[in-house]
């Protein structure tokens, strides 16, 4: 494994947790993002993720560096899976270790927010009656109506 990687096989979160664990760490936060069946009343059958792999891995590593600069003593590992993912499969794992708990939580949340901003990975939802590439979720017309 690499500390920052895009993978095609199922993700084993333990690998990433173990990677960031060090004697000086008092906390490891492990976030796993999963494929959700229902989104606003629409049933997803499965998801297809695609990435611009070299740039995505570079940007994941950049997020890791941002965190290690922003929160002293942290260590980060992130993996994102691409291809076809079934309901409840792990799409992303983020492991952050730090001397104290609060930092590990904060840094982990920062990582997922940054992934959604800068990492070139795209998700296509496949429903019973169609499919759609999901874009900037903040600007979805459906949400504006709601």
């Amino acid at each position, binding site marked *: 494994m690499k500390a920052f990687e895009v993978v095609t096989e199922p993700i084993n979160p333990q690998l990433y947790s173990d990677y960031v664990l060090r004697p000086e760490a008092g906390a490891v936060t492990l976030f796993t993002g999963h494929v959700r069946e229902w989104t606003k009343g629409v049933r997803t059958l499965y998801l297809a993720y695609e990435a*611009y792999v070299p740039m995505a891995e570079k940007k994941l590593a950049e997020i890791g560096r941002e965190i290690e600069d922003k929160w002293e003593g942290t260590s980060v590992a992130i993996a994102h899976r691409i291809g076809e993912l079934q309901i409840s499969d792990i799409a992303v794992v983020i492991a952050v270790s730090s001397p104290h708990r609060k930092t590990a939580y904060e840094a982990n949340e920062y990582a997922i927010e940054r992934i959604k901003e*800068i990492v*070139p990975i*795209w998700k*296509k939802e496949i429903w019973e009656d169609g499919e759609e*590439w999901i874009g900037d979720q903040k600007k979805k017309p459906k949400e504006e109506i709601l």
Partner: protein
Amino acid sequence: MIELHYFAGIRVLTGIPKESVYFSNQTVEDLWKWADEKYPGIRNSSVRIAVNEEYAMPSDIIESGDVVAFIPPVSGG
């Protein structure tokens, strides 16, 4: 020659995942104009261009040999 990569919804628009075109010593803005002529609608404020795996500014220069990607809004996680 430069290599162009298209992803997700942009690939649906172009109908191809990548292509090589003659383009050298011109700006990202120039590439936008070329792309919008060839693929009307590709130019959109939410689509970004990356040159050699870094997000680029409109004034950045593209050289022969560069790898350019059209990046629609990302949705990882």
